[in-house]
Every structure is written in C-alpha cells, then in structure tokens.
C-alpha cells in the first residue's frame, strides 16, 4: 500500500526586541553568566506583575501581516499552568483562545526548481508568549541548575496547518518562514542558538484516505536538516508500524540527532491539564485598524514580491531570482546596486558567483557584515565596462575589497591593475612572444588554431594579466595572419 504523510509544524521564534516581554531586563545576555539578566519580575518573586512590551505587540502584528494572517481586533493573554524548574511562576503567560493572528499562509516551492508548483501551507495561528529559562544538567547526575536569563524573552508561536506532505516541504516551509521573518527583521531565526525552535506533528495514512492518522509529536530537533531527517525517520517508522498491522500510539518522541532516530519519551502517569484561564494581571489589547495599516504600509517588500519583480521587471532567471529573493541581505545589496546600474545580469553574476564564493570561504552569512558595499561593486562594474580593468583582474579587485574594504579605483591604482590598452606596448610584447615561441608559430601556420590560446596566455603572463584581452586577441590574430601570408 502507498502511504501519505501529514505534517504540521509548531515553530517558536524569539523576537529580537531590546527587552523581555513583561519586564525591562535586556535580552542580550548571550555569553553572560547565568541569572545576570534577571529582575524580580522575570525571576517570579512574590508580588510582581507583568507589563507588556509595546514592541512585542507591534512585531507580532508585523509577523501576522507578513504571513498573510488576519489580525485580531482584540487579544488577551492567558495563563498556562504547569510546574517545571525553568518556569519561575509555575505558569507561562501565553495566549489561548484569542491569539493575536490567525488564518495565514506561506507559499513554498515558488520556482526554487523548475517544474515545481507553488503550494500554500496554511498558518493556523500565531500567538505571543514568554520563553522559559534554561535547565543545565549537573555533572553528578543528581542536580540540575536553572538559569532565568532566557525566562521572559518574547516568543511567537507559529502553528501551521497539517498541509505539509514531505520532509523537504517541511524544510522549504521553515526556510521560507525564516526568510520572511528576517526580511521583516523581527527575529534572528537561528535554530542553532535556539532563537528558532521547531516541533513537528507527524501522522501517516493510506494514500487517498481523507481521515487523519494518529499523530505523533516530535521534539528536540536542532537544525533544518535535523527536522528533515527526523520527519523522514518518523514517516518510515510509522509506515512500518502500519504495515505490520499495529496501531500508532499517540505520543511525544524525542529526536536523537546522533543516532538519527526518534525515541519515545517516558510518559508521565497523569495527562497534562494546563488549566488555561485569562491572565488577570494583564488587560486585553485592542488593535486599531489604523495601527495595523501603519505597520502594513511600513512592511518591506517580501520575498514573493521580490521574486516576481526580479523575473518580470529585471529579466533575471528563475534560478537567480530565487537565490537572491531568498536571501534578504543579498537581495537588499542587489536592490541597492540595481538602483544605480542597469546591467542586472552582471550584478547578479558577481553576487551569486565570485562574491558568494568569497563569503563562503570566509564563513560570512550576511553580506553587510563583510567589507563589500554596493558602491564598491558598482564602481568595479563601471571600471570593467569602460575597459579600465578586465573581468579577470576584477576577481583580484573583489578579493582586495573583502580584505581592505577600499574603493575599487583605489585598489586598482594601489596594485597597479589598470588594464593595458596601449597598441604600441602590446605590439612590442606580441613581437617578443612570437620571437620566443617559434614552435607555436609554425604550429599555427600549419593550421593548429589552438596555438593562439597558448600565445595569448604567454602575453597575459608577461603583462601580469593587465593587457586588455580583447585587444591582445585582435592584434595577435592580425600579426599571425601577417606571418602566415608572408
């Protein structure tokens, strides 16, 4: 029998606000000692009260708009009650029945590969909540240690519809989500450092069946690749269980990255009953249409719109447009260059070619954290166009920009990279090379055209690559023709 998987993702993203959701402690504690970014509020002292960070509400609305959600006119917080050492108050302030955003979607597969169709993955809801602290396990195995630096960091929980069918679709959903959130600058979205976390609900059913199978929740995945592998493993496991005639147990499973398997968590005797109820310490929030409009009109161009513009208005290839639009900083860099230079293809080639390669070498993710700036690239492109440097020399210029951040013209001057287009000088070199390579000349005369390439190479070598290659080619052919006809 053929089986189909049904997958829904629950993503938690930390909002990169200055302060925590309900107190004024800084969220920039990374690398600090435990329990240093804490106050009476986020450490759950008796008598404290929460006050909502305005920026959290704003970013939640922004996220909802970017993910095509409807924004609640009125929203409130609720308490989710459970005991765990990383939860200072014994309840988490979250949202239950009046989430800030609902009914959105993300489009995946938009042209990443030819022949694939766009697919809408629904977003059920987005809600605001506070992050918990961190439990660190003691080396003796008897104790754990609790750090509340993370307690109270604002989170958005983004819950997808069970619209995802494969692990690669799940990965594409996550990548697209991350891209959008980075575009709107609400979160760092880094799965490795925990600013983006993902749990997956996975079930399988016979292909064609419309009823949902029993769902299993998978936790503890630490990378997009991990999510993909965990889902693949889980689908295979569930199909095996079904094929053996057994039933899937509804449960939570942990992904073991080292072994690439999912394992049953030991179940607690009693079911969790979170006893949600409206948080009496926080009044409800009304979101005015004019505030939504203001946030909406301040939204940047999002990846889908960018992709369409690159193809329709700038005639980029689907492949290039997709690579660019899925990389917020590269796209921003491109847009800045494109504002002052019309050969979009040339910009794209440099950005996705040598520059991306260089960034990979240096381990740079965000082009704006490197030394290259749009004006450096623009100047270089103009210098290529007017023949001051060759495309080949330009690669050296790129290397130097990454190293020093200097202007292209200054680099060319400093390293003496100006292209030689002086006929007399080039002719002198041609004559030298002709004189030094009689074998190649005779080869050429006897019809071996390949000799031309060798000779050009020798000329470029003598000029340390600075001779204008077009001119060298033309003049060499003329000279060789003279020799042949002589």
């Amino acid at each position, binding site marked *: 029998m053929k089986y189909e998987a049904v997958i829904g993702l629950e993503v938690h993203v930390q909002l990169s*606000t*200055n*302060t925590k959701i309900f107190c*004024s*402690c*800084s969220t920039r504690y990374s690398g600090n*000692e*435990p*329990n*240093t*970014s*804490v*106050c*009476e509020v986020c*450490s759950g002292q008796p008598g404290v009260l929460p*006050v*909502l*960070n*305005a*920026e*959290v*509400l704003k970013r939640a609305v922004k996220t909802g708009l970017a993910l095509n959600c409807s924004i609640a006119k009125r929203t*409130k917080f609720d308490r989710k*009650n*459970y*005991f*765990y*050492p990383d939860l200072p108050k014994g309840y988490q302030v979250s949202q239950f029945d009046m989430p800030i955003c609902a009914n959105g979607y993300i489009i995946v597969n938009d042209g990443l590969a030819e022949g694939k169709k766009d697919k809408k993955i629904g977003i059920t809801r987005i809600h605001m909540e506070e992050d918990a602290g961190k*439990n*660190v*396990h*003691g080396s003796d*195995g*008897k*104790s*754990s*240690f*609790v*750090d*509340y630096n993370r307690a109270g960091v604002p989170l958005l929980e983004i819950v997808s519809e069970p619209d995802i069918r494969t692990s690669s679709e799940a990965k594409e959903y996550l990548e697209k989500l991350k891209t959008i959130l980075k575009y709107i600058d609400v979160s760092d979205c880094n799965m490795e450092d925990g600013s983006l976390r993902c749990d997956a609900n996975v079930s399988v059913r016979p292909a064609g069946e419309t009823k949902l199978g029993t769902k299993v929740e998978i936790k503890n995945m630490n990378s997009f690749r991990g999510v993909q592998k965990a889902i693949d493993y889980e689908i295979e496991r569930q199909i095996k269980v079904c094929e053996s005639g057994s039933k899937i147990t509804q449960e*939570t499973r*942990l992904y073991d990255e080292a072994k690439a398997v999912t*394992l049953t*968590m*030991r*179940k*607690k*005797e*009693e079911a*969790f*009953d*979170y*006893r949600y109820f*409206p948080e*009496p310490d*926080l*009044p*409800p*929030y*009304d979101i005015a249409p004019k505030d939504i409009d203001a946030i909406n009109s301040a939204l940047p161009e999002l990846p889908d719109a960018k992709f369409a513009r690159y193809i329709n208005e700038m005639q980029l290839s689907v492949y290039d447009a997709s690579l660019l639009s899925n990389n917020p900083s590269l796209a921003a860099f491109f847009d800045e260059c494109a504002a002052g230079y019309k050969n979009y293809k040339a910009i794209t080639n440099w950005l996705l070619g040598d520059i991306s390669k260089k960034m990979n070498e240096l381990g740079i993710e965000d082009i704006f954290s490197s030394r290259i700036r749009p004006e450096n690239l623009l100047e270089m492109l103009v210098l290529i166009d007017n023949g001051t440097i060759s495309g080949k020399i330009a690669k050296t210029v790129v290397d130097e920009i990454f190293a020093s951040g200097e202007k292209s013209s200054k680099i060319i001057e400093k390293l003496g990279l100006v292209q030689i287009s002086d006929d007399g000088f080039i002719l002198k070199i041609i004559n030298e090379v002709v004189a030094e390579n009689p074998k190649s000349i005779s080869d050429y005369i006897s019809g071996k055209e390949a000799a031309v390439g060798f000779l050009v190479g020798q000329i470029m070598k003598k000029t340390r690559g600075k001779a204008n290659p077009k001119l060298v080619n033309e003049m060499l052919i003329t000279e060789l023709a003279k020799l042949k006809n002589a």
Partner: protein
Amino acid sequence: MISKEEITKIAGLAMLELSENEKAEYSSQLSSLLGYFNEIQDLDLAGVEPTNHALVADNVLREDTAVPSLGQNVVVAGAPATDGKSYRVPAIIETEEQP
C-alpha cells in the same frame, strides 16, 4: 461528590502531596462546598460576557527600553539551594515527557 481518587488527581496537578486523612477530609469538604456552589448553575447566563478582568483600562504597554537587571548575587541569594550562580534542583530527567 468528589472522590478521593479525584482529589488525588487534582492534588497531583497542584503538586500537593496530601496524606490519606487530608484526602478524605478535602473530599468531603469540597463535596459539600461544591454542592452549595452549584447554586450558580441555576442562573440564566445565556449571552452574558464573563468578567475576565476586573475594572481595567485596555492597552497598557511599556517602552522597549532596557534597565539594568538586579544581578545574579541578588536574585539567587535567597534560594534554598544554589551553586552561587544558578538555582539547584533535583536532576531533571530529559527523556521524561516535559510539560
């Protein structure tokens, strides 16, 4: 009538280890209290909005500006068990289902 078993389950949610005597006592007291409290079921409350919040103004917000935190030595000092930097608790078993 709230059974002792139900009291045990509720006590588990509330993280209270009750003695058998306490369970028996609470089971009978809560049964009679809830018997009396059930009066509210007689009210016709169709279409009535619940008072989720007492007299409050909506939209109370705070600026996103950081203020210095209290710091490790202040916050952790009052804890029953610490290593001087973090709160110490009995080992948390990771493979156990977490809330």
